């Protein structure tokens, strides 16, 4: 039942209607100046980037097994069953591990605020929960951004490639990367030429830290037994020496 977004770079005309709709939905200011900023920030949760005559869209990939959700110490970030990765501002203490860990460099921080929060695209979790599509998909005039069931979107992407093999790069970004992402990317060229990080493993990054974290019970057990044992031996030796000394005194 997980939803997703399919962004097709070949259909995008760079009109930035998605940016405007996104800012409106998230109560952020949007004007011509902000439109020119081609990067994500705390006041711009999605951005169209231009690469010659081609476009790419930056937004939270809403990973199926998100790195940010795994690293957040206060569980402020959550993956919902619908697909969006949401952020609970009331929990966040501002450690910024999510910013550091996200392989797509998506979460942004309100650096100029005295009491800052993290900002990121949440795939319009409130709208999706209400059965609507995301604001960006609704605003897109060409269908370059399409909202739907993730499985259906993957099938559609494959159809588009099969129908026009010359027009597309064969790889659908997001089907397997990091265990899959809710946002899928299609383009005429490999997406790394359009500023998207390539070469990501097909397993979630959270496994890397979990391998270490899952050793904690072993470390605790081994340390307890080893240190307790050493303590017992070293102090037992003392006791024995003391007892032997007394016996010797008695004899003499």
């Amino acid at each position, binding site marked *: 039942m997980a939803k997703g977004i399919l962004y097709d770079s070949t259909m995008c005309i760079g009109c930035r209607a998605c940016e405007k709709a996104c800012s409106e939905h998230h109560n952020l200011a949007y004007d011509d100046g902000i439109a020119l900023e081609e990067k994500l920030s705390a006041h711009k949760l999605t951005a169209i980037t231009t690469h010659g005559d081609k476009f790419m869209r930056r937004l939270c990939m809403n990973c199926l097994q998100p790195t940010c959700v795994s690293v957040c110490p206060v569980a402020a970030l959550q993956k919902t069953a619908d697909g969006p990765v949401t952020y609970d501002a009331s*929990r966040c203490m501002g*450690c*910024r591990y999510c910013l550091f860990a996200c392989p797509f460099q998506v979460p942004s921080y309100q650096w100029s*605020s005295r009491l800052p929060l993290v900002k990121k695209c949440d795939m319009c979790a409130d709208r999706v929960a209400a059965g609507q599509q995301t604001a960006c998909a609704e605003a897109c005039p060409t269908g370059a951004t399409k909202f739907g069931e993730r499985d259906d979107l993957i099938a559609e992407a494959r159809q588009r490639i099969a129908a026009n093999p010359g027009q597309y790069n064969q790889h659908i970004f997001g089907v397997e990367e990091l265990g899959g992402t809710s946002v899928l990317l299609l383009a005429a060229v490999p997406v790394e030429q359009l500023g998207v*990080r390539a070469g990501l493993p097909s397993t979630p990054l959270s496994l890397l830290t*979990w391998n270490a*974290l899952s050793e*904690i019970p072993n470390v605790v057990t081994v340390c307890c037994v080893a240190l307790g044992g050493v303590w017992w031996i*070293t102090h037992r030796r003392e006791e024995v020496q003391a007892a032997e000394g007394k016996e010797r005194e008695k004899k003499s």
Partner: protein
Amino acid sequence: MIGVRRFPRLTFWQMVFFVVMAGGLYASYVRVMHGLGGATHLSDQFPWGLWIGFDVLCGVGLAAGGFTLAATVHIFNIERYKPILRPAILTAFLGYLLVILALMFDLGRPYRIWHPLVMWNPHSVMFEVGWCVTLYTTVLALEFAPVVLERFHLVRALKAMRIVLIPLVILGVILSTLHQSSLGSLYLIVPEKLYPLWYTSLMPVFFFISALCAGLAMTIFESWQSSRAFGKHLELPLISGMGRLLAVLLSVYMTARFLDLLHRGVLPLLARRRPETYLFILEIALFLVPMFLLFRRKVYSNASALYGCAVMVLLGFVANRLNVSVTGVEAGSGIAYFPKWTEIAVTLFIVALGFAIFRFAVKYLPIFEGGVPAFSKDRNIVSSVPVVSTVPGD
């Protein structure tokens, strides 16, 4: 407090201290009023800088002498190290308190620092770090408590402390092991960002071993410094023994690092002319040189040479932590970061605070064997503070 003869030298350091304090306080004001954006050069692409890399990572590592010596004396029952146990515990306790202070600067919303204790996510390394900091600071406070209790002759409380001492020491060792290694685990999540000379799945292990080295080096460093500053007798046989142990630990550490690089096949990276290469060579040299030196009798039986080696190891340790947390991730983040003056001012402020509190504690608490040595020797003492001449207990 201040001998007339040494007056000029002390005023110089006092002046440095006050300048650092003033700078730190002004930087704190900037941090509070203008937020992280106004006080740091951090950005979305580079969210962790000097405060995490130096104040937190190095602060925790340099505190490792505390649990190492506590285990040596109380678990391994090597009693002759007792004279330097208290200074080591004090260093560790101060280190952790200052790390928490640094976190108050670095966290976006410091008043929520307690959140990880209530809002759990056991899959997060940061969650583990938060718990370890909290619990181990508590353990250190308890391990340090006898010093204060002794100072105020609270005999009954002292007896109670003696009962819980061994479980407390074991708990301290476990928490430290987890904490030191978890700081390395933090960086396991960024395989695509951290330069391959440092990124390895063994980072938790390496952080732990290098922390042991730093803890020993720190203990040698502070024994030497204390002997000079407080006119205290230097326990040469003790720091000599630690120097030799340090040599062994360093060789274990260096061998493991080398084998890891070899098995991952990243040694050819050393041929690249990149800043990472030079920083890596600098870091390794700062471990290798003292390692070779410390195996020599001439070096480990000479106090000044031991001190020099300890300083090198400490610098190597700081280089390693900064390489992992700052310089090693710059290229991967696609950004050049250099700390803003406020970041440096706060860091100096915290370090100076550490030195000052250590000095203060040594003066008024029975940290070193023989009570409070500074009192008995110096007549220019504020007479309102009673001199305690207790024989230090366990």
